[in-house]
């Protein structure tokens, strides 16, 4: 406990110097959904509407709609809040990109990330791809296990996979968990 506190204090004390490290990590999850791309996009394309389909999300406070610069504050059921800013939203291509710059390590053990969500046709249905780029929670050279690249990959993959599972359930009418 003392060690954890010491680590946490160190991270807080060094602040933004640690917020952007030099080793980015990839994450990608996809799902196929038995629904038309436009129908899926209507639900998933609302930047501020993530609480309607992501089972890990408790509440969202959103401002700015789907315009560049819009912000959503996503509070997770497990605790912590992700403040995400919308970069680009292209309805004609059913895709949007966004980023999180100020970390909340209780929400996700990563120091920053950006992500792109895209809905494409797949046969009669849709394929949703959610990909991202992130930096581990502690971008110093000797990160503790809970803030390592691997911990970040595991948490990000789980967060994206849970979301797409929830979206599929919502669109196909199954259970959300």
């Amino acid at each position, binding site marked *: 406990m003392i060690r954890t506190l010491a680590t946490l204090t160190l991270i807080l004390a060094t602040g933004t110097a640690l917020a952007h490290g030099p080793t980015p990590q*990839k994450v990608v999850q996809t799902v196929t959904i038995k629904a038309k791309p436009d129908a899926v996009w209507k639900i998933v394309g609302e930047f501020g509407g993530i609480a309607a389909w992501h089972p890990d999300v408790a509440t969202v406070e959103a401002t700015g709609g789907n315009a560049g610069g819009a912000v959503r504050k996503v509070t997770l059921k497990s605790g912590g809040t992700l403040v995400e800013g919308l970069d680009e939203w292209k309805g004609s291509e059913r895709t949007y990109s966004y*980023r999180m710059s100020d970390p909340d390590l209780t929400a996700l053990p990563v120091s920053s990330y950006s992500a792109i969500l895209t809905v494409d046709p797949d046969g009669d249905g849709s394929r949703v791809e959610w990909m991202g*780029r992130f930096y581990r929670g502690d971008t110093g050279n000797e990160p503790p296990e809970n803030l390592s690249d691997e911990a970040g990959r595991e948490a990000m993959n789980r967060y994206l996979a849970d979301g797409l599972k929830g979206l599929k359930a919502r669109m196909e009418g199954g259970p959300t968990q």
Partner: protein
Amino acid sequence: MIGCVRLFGLLVLLAAWPAAGGGLFVVSQQGAKVTRIEVGGATTATLVAAAPAVVAADAAGRLYLSHPDRRVVSVVAPDGSVRSLPLKAQPFGLAAEPDGSRIYVGDWSGNRVIALAMDGAVAGEAATGPDPAHLVLGPAGRLYVAEREGRSVGVIDTVAMRRVGSFPVGDGPFALAYDPARGRLYVANVRSNDVTVIDTQAGRILATVPAGASPYGIAVTADGARVLVSDQHAGKVSVIDAKTLAVTATVPVGPYPEGVAIRGGFAYVANWFSDTVSVIDLATLRETRRIPVAEGPRGLAVAPGAPEASR
């Protein structure tokens, strides 16, 4: 007459390529490889130490790679042999004097730039603003540093190894390109989604050009007429006209594009997410080819051919 001189210069250049150790290189961070890309698209990869992030080249065709996680800078000789220079730093940004006499290394978490002699000995260091990202050499004796958390570009006197000034830029300055013909510095600002254009001779900001989402890599054409900026979150490259200082075209490339380099009439863009390099024809502004490379391509560098005498 002018045409004749130009043609002659071109022939010399073309003749020099196949015989020399130069070329276009891309560094893959996860794949721990540096890949040489030929004009026709053929590739040759060399395995290096883990997690190289940035690549720079000198006029003799030597390559320099930074490994922030390993506290090491690698030097790859034109014959492919690799030397390792250990550093008490988190090396990221790199610039090399054309004759290779000095390498400048940004220490990301140490807020400084270190000058290394060819043998790896520390020749000096200069304090910078917070989180030095990419570096670029300007006119003789000047090195510019993108100070990512300082909204500034630091100006380093490379003789005194001292930060002698700075320019205020946008939010999150990361990548730099210098046009020696106009004495201009172009700065890609990741968070404010724009490019700051600086007249380094007059010491003033000429313009702030809105670019696409998260401009992350930047290069200027040899004639200085156009500037190419990768928009990381939009999967495209914006083309800025150096005269009007406005975006005149955008070119779709692969996902999460980062480094940009220009060789001849083509631009090369590292698509970090899809492990490819996009080739853009600068005449048509279309992607003509996508070349697979090792995982996690980030930076690119163009090395001129090694002079015969040094081979």
